[in-house]
Every structure is written in C-alpha cells, then in structure tokens.
C-alpha cells in the first residue's frame, strides 16, 4: 500500500508539472496576450507598459516566470491581474458550488445508470429493454444546452416547481440548496445515465456467457443471486473506469455549460471568465486544481479496481 501511494504521488507530481508547463507555454505563444499591455489598458504609453512589466516580472525569462508562478500557487500568493485578488481564495470560494453540482449529479447518474443498465440486461430483447435503450440513446444524444433551457422553461417558468437557478450554500439553507440544484443535477446526469446504462448492459450480456456463470447456475444458486453476485459484480470494472474519468473531470470544473446555464458560480465559470480575459494566473490555478482532482480520483479508482478484481491487487502481478 505504501509503495502504491508513493508511486501515485510521484505520478501526480509528474502530471501536474506536465499540465502546468503545457498551459504556460500555450499562453505565451498565443498572440495578443501580453499581460502588461492588457493591464496598461488601451491608452497606454510604452513607459507604462515597461513599468508594469518590471513590476510583475513579465520581462524575466519564461522559465523564471514559470517558476515564480508555481511558487506563488503553492504558497497561496498568486493573484489575478485585474482585479488584483487572490486566485486561491477565488477557487476556494467556488469549490462548494462545483462540488455540490458534481457529487449530487454523480450519485444520480451512477444510481440510475446502474439500475437501468441492470434492468435492461435482465430483460434483454424485451419491451422494457427496448424502452430503456431508446431512453438511453435520447439521453446521450440530446445536448446539455438543449436540456437545460427546456427543463428551465417548463419546470421553472411554466409550472414553477423549481426556483430559478443560482447557487445557495448548503450551510445557509439546505432545502434551498437542494431545490436549486435538482435541475442542474438532472441536466448533468442525463448523458451519463444513458451512457452508463448502455455500457453496463453490454458488459452484463458478455459476462452472462462466461463459464463461471454457468458454474454458478450449476451450483443451484437462485437466478437473482447469479445475476447480482456473479454477473453484476464482474461487469462493474469498466463502469468504475468510466466513473473515475467522468467524475474527476466534473469535479475539476468541466461542467461549464451546466454551470453557465444555471448561473452556478463554480470553478468552470471562473475558468471560462479567466480564459476570456487572457488571465494566466487563474487559468493556471484552475488547471492545477483540476489536474490534482483528476489524478486523485483516478488513484481512488485504482484502489476500487483492486477491490473489485483481486487479480489486480496492488503490487502483485496478475496471473494467466
């Protein structure tokens, strides 16, 4: 276990380094992004630009600038250009919205994805399966920017069941928090529900043909036990992989469209604003934050693998 953690930490550092370098380089080769010019404004003089460059260190070499920026990120001193406020504080302030959105949606999509996939596989070829297949395909193909306005129009403006979005902190008012988040959750979850149910269904149909499932039946186990203990359990590994990637990405702030359409002031919105304003520090902060969570969640996934399949137990080599 210790070896595993150390290996993971080393991997995480390598990933963070690579990602940060790439983002940094991209920002410095894209034209029209001289931050001193941006800060100086439209009616700037060369003298002003020069003094800003000196003040912020933009005249240093790129490796130097990079090192300074990374040092600032990890000491919490990084600030955005305009207004000059702490990036770390900005991110921390927005974490509750993104976490609330991601975790809630993940629970919904995992639960319904697995449930519908399981039912589909049990009734493969039947009318329930066909109905669920249609539902899944619809969920996968309807884009988020269509689902959200439709839900908002009917459920918020017409029927007034749900309040118009905006994030209400959980600590402030739990029931408001919940009612404001239900639509975003559903919006974000629908695609994954469709996707996960399809993947689980096809995995289960594959596993049903395995020899050990026949063995389980030959032992005289009930059909329900055969399905849940032997078929479902062995079909979960690819689902865990998918979930690790999806959840890692969502928590890293990639649910930008959902955050935007429901005015949830989360990491994704912060990132998009920063990119629009060519502000490198917040982009870098969000990148490091996102990369950290992607790597972290995937480390958890590896642990879950080992639990699901003893052949990949940590530190052991798999057999045959």
């Amino acid at each position, binding site marked *: 276990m210790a070896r595993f953690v150390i290996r993971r930490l080393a991997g995480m550092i390598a990933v963070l380094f690579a990602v940060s370098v790439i983002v940094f380089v991209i920002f410095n080769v894209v034209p029209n992004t001289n931050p001193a010019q941006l800060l100086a404004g439209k009616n700037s003089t060369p003298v002003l630009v020069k003094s800003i460059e000196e003040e912020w260190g933009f005249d240093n070499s790129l490796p130097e600038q990079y090192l300074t920026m990374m040092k600032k990120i990890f000491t919490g001193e990084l600030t955005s250009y305009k207004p000059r406020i702490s990036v770390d504080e900005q991110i921390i302030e927005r974490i509750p919205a993104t976490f609330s959105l991601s975790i809630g949606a993940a629970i919904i999509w995992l639960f319904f994805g697995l449930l519908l996939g399981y039912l589909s596989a049990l009734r493969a070829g039947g009318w329930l399966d066909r109905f669920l297949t249609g539902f899944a395909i619809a969920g996968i193909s309807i884009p988020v920017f269509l689902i959200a306005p439709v839900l908002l129009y009917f459920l918020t403006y017409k029927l007034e069941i749900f309040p118009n979005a905006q994030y209400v902190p959980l600590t402030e008012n739990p029931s408001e928090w919940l009612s404001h988040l239900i639509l975003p959750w559903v919006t974000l979850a629908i695609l994954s529900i469709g996707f996960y149910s399809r993947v689980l269904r096809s995995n289960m149909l594959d596993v049903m043909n*395995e*020899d*050990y499932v*026949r*063995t*389980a*039946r*030959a*032992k*005289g*186990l*009930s*059909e329900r*036990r055969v399905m849940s*203990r*032997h078929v479902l*359990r*062995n079909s979960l590994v690819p689902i865990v992989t998918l979930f690790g990637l999806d959840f890692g990405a969502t928590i890293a702030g990639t649910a930008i469209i959902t955050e935007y359409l429901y005015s949830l002031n989360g990491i994704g919105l912060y990132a998009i604003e920063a990119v629009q304003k060519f502000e490198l520090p917040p982009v870098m902060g969000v990148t490091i934050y996102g990369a950290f969570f992607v790597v972290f969640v995937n480390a958890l996934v590896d642990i879950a693998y080992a639990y*699901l*399949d*003893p*052949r990949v137990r940590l530190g052991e080599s*798999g*057999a*045959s």
Partner: protein
Amino acid sequence: MSPAPLLSVKGLRVGFSTEGGLLQAVDDVSFEVRPGEVVAIVGESGSGKSVTAQTIMGLTRSKNARIEGTAEFEGMDLIEASDAELRRLRGDRVAMVFQDPMTSFNPVYRLGAQIGEAIRAHRDGVSKSEARARAVELFEAVGIPNAEGRVDDYPHEFSGGMRQRAMIAMALALEPDLLIADEPTTALDVTIQAQILELLRELNRKRNLATILITHDLGVVAEIADRVLVMYAGRVVEQGTLDQIFFDPQHPYTWGLLGSLTRLDKPRPVRLPQISGAPPSLLALPEGCSFRPRCPHEFGPCIDLPPLQARLRDEPGHCDRCWLSPEAKKEKRQVAGQIGLEAPTP
C-alpha cells in the same frame, strides 16, 4: 441383477431453433446410470454429448430450445421439473464439473467462498465459518496440500490441476448422488490428467458416486468408464460396456475412433489413421445413416436410418446403429491387423 438406476434418460431430444432452421443437437438418446457406475459419453465436438449432459442439469433451458423425452432421477422427471425444483437438485443431488477450470471459477471471489456459496444455497442455517470449514475438509479430500492455508486463495493463485481439484471439491460439497463431468481433463496436461482421473475413480468407489463422463478422449474412457455411449451428429451410434466397445466395436464410426488412437503396444503407423471428412452440419443432416458420407463401408440399406438395437444374440446390452451384419463387421473392421476404419496410408 444390478441396482435400480439412479438416472434413467429415455428418448431425449434437444433442438434449438436458429436462423438456419431447427438444429437437432440431441436426437433420441436413452441411457441409464446406476449408483457407483461411470457412464462415458464419447464423441467429437458437436456430437451432442455436452448438450445431453447440460440438459439433464436443466442448463440448456431457453426460449429457443425444444426439449423432449424424459430424464428420471429418483422418481422426478428432470425435463418436466420446474426451474425451482431443478435448482434445489442442482449442486445438491446432481453436481457438475466443467471442462475449463481456468474459466469456471469466478475470478473475483475466494475459492472457499465459492464452495461455501454452494453449500449455503442448499443448507439453511449453515454459517459462513462452518461452510469454510467444510471447504477445508473438501480440499483435503481431493488432495489439495495445505488446505487450510489455500482455501482463502483466489482462483488465479491456483494452478490448472489444482483448480480442477477445487472444482471437484465444489461438486462434492453436498455429497451428490450423481456427478456430471464435462471433459474434466481436457484442459489439463497429461500427468495432471492422470491424477484427476485417479481422483475421480477413487471418489467413485469410496462414495458410490454415479458419474456421467463427457469426453472425446478414448484414453480417458479406457481408464475409468464402466459403460460407453458413442455419439455422432446428435445420435447414439453405439452403446455397450467398456469391453464391448473396445474389443468388439460394431459401428464403423467407433472403429474409426479406435483406429485413430496412438498405441504403445502396436508398431507405429507411418501416418496416424484418421476418419476422413468432417461431421455433417446439424442443420443439414444426410438422409439415412448420418455417418454414411464418411463411411467406406456404405451399401444399399444405409439410405434408411438404422435403429439403435442389439444386433449380437448374446449381448443384449450392446446396441448399435449399423445395417452391416455382425459377421461382415468382424471382417471389415480388421485393418492392418487391428481395429480401424481404413488402412493407414503409407
């Protein structure tokens, strides 16, 4: 003369409706198994031997399967039995050992737990630790060294031979009366095969276990079987005692099988004899005797399907499906000084 049969299969027919039409995998198979007896079902791939065995266990039931005939096990017809009745029987009174021990255990559970699961499915009130203790006993009984230490291993931590022992241990967990072994040694190398056969024979004697052995390997049959059914294209072409089949085979297909064995006690042929051609498609069986297209001794009557019946006056239990007279058979099966279908090509 002998004890009442434990299992009595009569007129078993299993067909599957496929896109290409009705596939008759098993056609009119009848046999009996008595306690302590080993009945071997021999045939090549697609001869219907595994389908026969799995149908007895109820494992071929599906929407597109047509199953006829009876399989009486202690007064209960396994073909007519409800799924729930069959489930109670499976693993408890009738157990099965499968061909490939590599894939027949669930890779994600400990072996002891998988054996325990079989026990607890049939015996209410057996705790997990009791079931585990029983698994240790079973591991010892099938000769797995350090049983106590290995019962909590995962399947991938076992070698193939040991896994097959564990498979047999699982089959024996509830002391079944009938064991169906579907190619139990096919996936194992030869020395391990011999050990597993030895184990099966020992269990057979010690526990008076009736066994149906499905195999394509006549060497295995010679080791262990009491009676033999030879199947071809879904039908039994010959059945009899081990000695009858090996020393006085009546059907040309059996001659071909015996002739293509390598033997240490005979001079080595230049080329190993084989039965020319391939088995027919079950969707397009030839008219009459299904072995006809591959049989060098085909003659007029073969266009009609010969019934399975005893054709030797003093051997009522020895039946075959061949129109040739016993005398003609005796003459034709002698090829190069031994039983065979055709002379080995030099």
